[in-house]
């Protein structure tokens, strides 16, 4: 396996992890544009733009784009987060050129008015779909509360009101600034012909313009406290709790990842034994995610409403115990085995590797192969994890609950 990189004259970066023995390849454009880059009145524009990318380009109509991807048998999609919008396809090696050409088309959307109006309805349906699903928007509310004015507090989807107010002109302007050639990465993994990829990128993307584009990074000043949104028809109470973790630049992120597993993996973790094994809750988990300027631990718990008060008390005790006594060597070793196995299994598929490579290169300009990633996890000690517990206490959190209860106490 080899990692190859190249930067075009207009600043477009290309990175590929090449395995000659792979059967397929994953390829995608990663754009440094996400909900954190949006002004208030355009909340949701990054995600709406991601949809519009498929709705017409200088050379193709929306229907032609869908037909062309399906004709080469691509498994393709796009996804928007707070930090990145990614467009990707997994294909057989003979379709590398075709997939690259189609993905490059998507980067130049024309935003036809009829498609724009129709797709806005689709987005509004997507927002309503999530409002129907547990935790009924409590995750977005908690994010807004915890990040307290920090750009990472924005909902990726935006609100029904903000999306309704977005115009094609404002979207075009946002696209021109954020989809600049020096603000994106073309990444590939698997059986990649790198020379051909670079040649093709020069032809297809060489005349894209660069921009004086920036992202405002802020130190996180989180807000704590709790809030309840009453959802009378629900039978369970759904709780989301956010607390601070190390950022994506911080080497402590490996310890944070293992800590999340020790406390909140879906089997064998502290939350599992306390809540799932005993049947006290329907689900309980802790996950860790990182951004350029912040990291976050997300704890979720869902249980029958009348068990909620007792469960919240147990949760506080688990966290107190963790902060007083730390984790054990045995817990750390088991967490390492689980996390490393899942990384190895996932990396058998090139399309899974694509995301690690593209996103990390775009945001941090760094590359790590699977072996290096496993070594970094293996090197974590109990003392490292316990230091993360002290520096980023899970007991300092913002909480939002959705369900039948009027109060959590």
């Amino acid at each position: 396996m080899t990692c190859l990189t190249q930067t075009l004259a207009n600043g477009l970066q290309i990175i590929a992890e090449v395995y000659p023995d792979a059967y397929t390849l994953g390829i995608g454009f990663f754009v440094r544009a996400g909900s954190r880059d949006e002004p208030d009145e355009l909340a949701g524009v990054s995600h709406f733009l991601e949809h519009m990318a498929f709705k017409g380009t200088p050379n193709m109509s929306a229907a032609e784009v869908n037909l062309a991807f399906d004709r080469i048998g691509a498994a393709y999609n796009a996804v928007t987060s707070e930090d990145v919008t990614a467009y990707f396809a997994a294909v057989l090696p003979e379709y590398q050129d075709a997939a690259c050409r189609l993905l490059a088309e998507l980067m130049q959307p024309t935003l036809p008015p009829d498609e724009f109006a129709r797709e806005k309805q689709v987005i509004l349906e997507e927002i309503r779909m999530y409002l129907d699903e547990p935790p009924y928007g409590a995750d977005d509310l908690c994010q807004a509360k915890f990040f307290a004015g920090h750009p990472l507090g924005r909902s990726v989807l935006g609100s029904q009101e903000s999306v309704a107010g977005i115009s094609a002109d404002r979207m075009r302007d946002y696209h021109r600034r954020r989809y600049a050639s020096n603000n994106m990465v073309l990444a590939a993994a698997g059986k990649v012909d790198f020379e051909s990829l670079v040649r093709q990128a020069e032809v297809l993307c060489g005349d894209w313009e660069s921009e004086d584009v920036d992202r405002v990074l802020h130190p996180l000043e989180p807000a704590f406290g709790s809030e309840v949104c009453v959802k009378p028809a629900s039978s369970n109470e759904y709780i989301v709790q956010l607390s601070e973790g190390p950022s994506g630049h911080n080497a402590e992120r490996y310890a944070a990842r293992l800590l999340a597993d020790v406390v909140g993996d879906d089997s064998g973790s502290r939350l599992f034994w306390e809540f799932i094994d005993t049947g006290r809750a329907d689900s309980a988990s802790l996950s860790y995610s990182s951004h350029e300027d912040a990291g976050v631990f997300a704890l979720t718990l869902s249980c029958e409403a009348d068990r909620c008060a007792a469960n919240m008390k147990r949760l506080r005790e688990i966290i107190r115990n963790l902060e007083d006594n730390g984790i054990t060597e045995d817990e750390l070793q088991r967490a390492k085995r689980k996390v490393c196995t899942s990384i190895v299994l996932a990396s058998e598929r090139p399309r899974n590797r694509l995301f690690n490579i593209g996103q990390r290169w775009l945001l941090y300009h760094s590359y790590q192969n699977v072996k290096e990633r496993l070594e970094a996890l293996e090197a974590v000690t109990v003392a490292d994890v316990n230091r993360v517990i002290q520096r980023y206490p899970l007991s300092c959190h913002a909480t939002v609950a959705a369900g039948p209860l009027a109060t959590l106490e």
Partner: protein
Amino acid sequence: MITASEDGTFLHRYSNGLILLAEAMPWVESTAFAVAVPAGSGRDPIDRSGLASLTCEMCLRGAGERDNRRFMSDLESLGVNWHDSVGSDHIRLSGACAADAFPQALGIFADVLRRPRLPRDELENARQGLLQDILSVEDDPADLASRELRRRFFPSPFHRPHEGEADHVRAINWEEVREHYEKHFRPNGTILGVAGKFDWNGLRDQVGELLGDWSASEPCPIAETPQQPIIWHVDYPSQQTHIAVAYPSVPYDHPRYYEAVGTVGVLSGGMSARLFTEVREKRGLCYSVHATYKTRPRMGAVICYSGTTAERAQETLDVLLRELIRLREGVQDAELERLRSQYRTGLVMHQESTSARSGALVHDWHLLGRTRSLREIEERIRGLTTTAINQFLRDHPPRSFTIVMVGPKPLEVPRDVLDANAS
């Protein structure tokens, strides 16, 4: 009997009826397994819906020399990624790990099959967990639509929710769990599939040592009663109306199975497929719309889903049903061509996942009594023609729709669809 085919698949049938299937994928570093035991929810007594799920949960609370905690921590120390699930026919355990840890992992799961501790003092915890699962379906209207559709469309016993009914689960006692285990956990009818990196002789011998002396027992018959098509609304205070539609198709072992999945691909394979194009792309009615092929022994089904804001739900239902009726007019060459490309990619991607392959081996054996190589599937897909698909559609036109709507108000089912249901 041992067979090893040229495409790297192996079969061994033990004298007690246990089937071992394996597919070598020497280019990977992992080994995956799936084991299906004939103890699924279809075997639940009529007043004990949920017994199979509760039994599965209890079997995983310690086995052989390991108690609940030791069982979990030993699997974690080996780095096994594992799951359990309950279907109508089977309780299914599956997992994947580094190839060198696999023999030990297999030993632990053999204990689950043969020597579960079924700890009496943990029954209440297991029951509470299952009751939480049942309850949580009610909180998601899309899940609720899917459960209610299954209840109305499939014949008994496949119509039951696998997680069971709350009242039944509350009434189950420990003796009933033990009885379900003793009656239905047996080697004849159990299928073990392995894929990835392994040594075939070593694997066959190890499975023989672990499970070869497991005693066979008589299978209990499953009673089936047919279901009538039905249109049903569940009143629910949701933002969207969640629409689920099912109609009958041919089963997995039917000679025209490939034509049947071809028709579903035309409806829902890729973003240029008919449902996505007509419901979402041309009209912007929804975010999510799709159709999938499902199979049970002796019957197949096409299940469709969409969710739309209440005011626009009627149009979504109308367009969705019209597309199902329009399918009777046949499919085009270009549609089939795109489908073939998608299948080709999908089949190659299967070769990248040991878990996908071990699961497919077990699934094929259960429903076909044999496994299919990726090459065989590719040849069948290549051999599909629009003529054959269109003849299939004349012989098996979409009709006899079961329709479930979960949302604030019921929708009207168009007259011609009701007529089609009768025709």
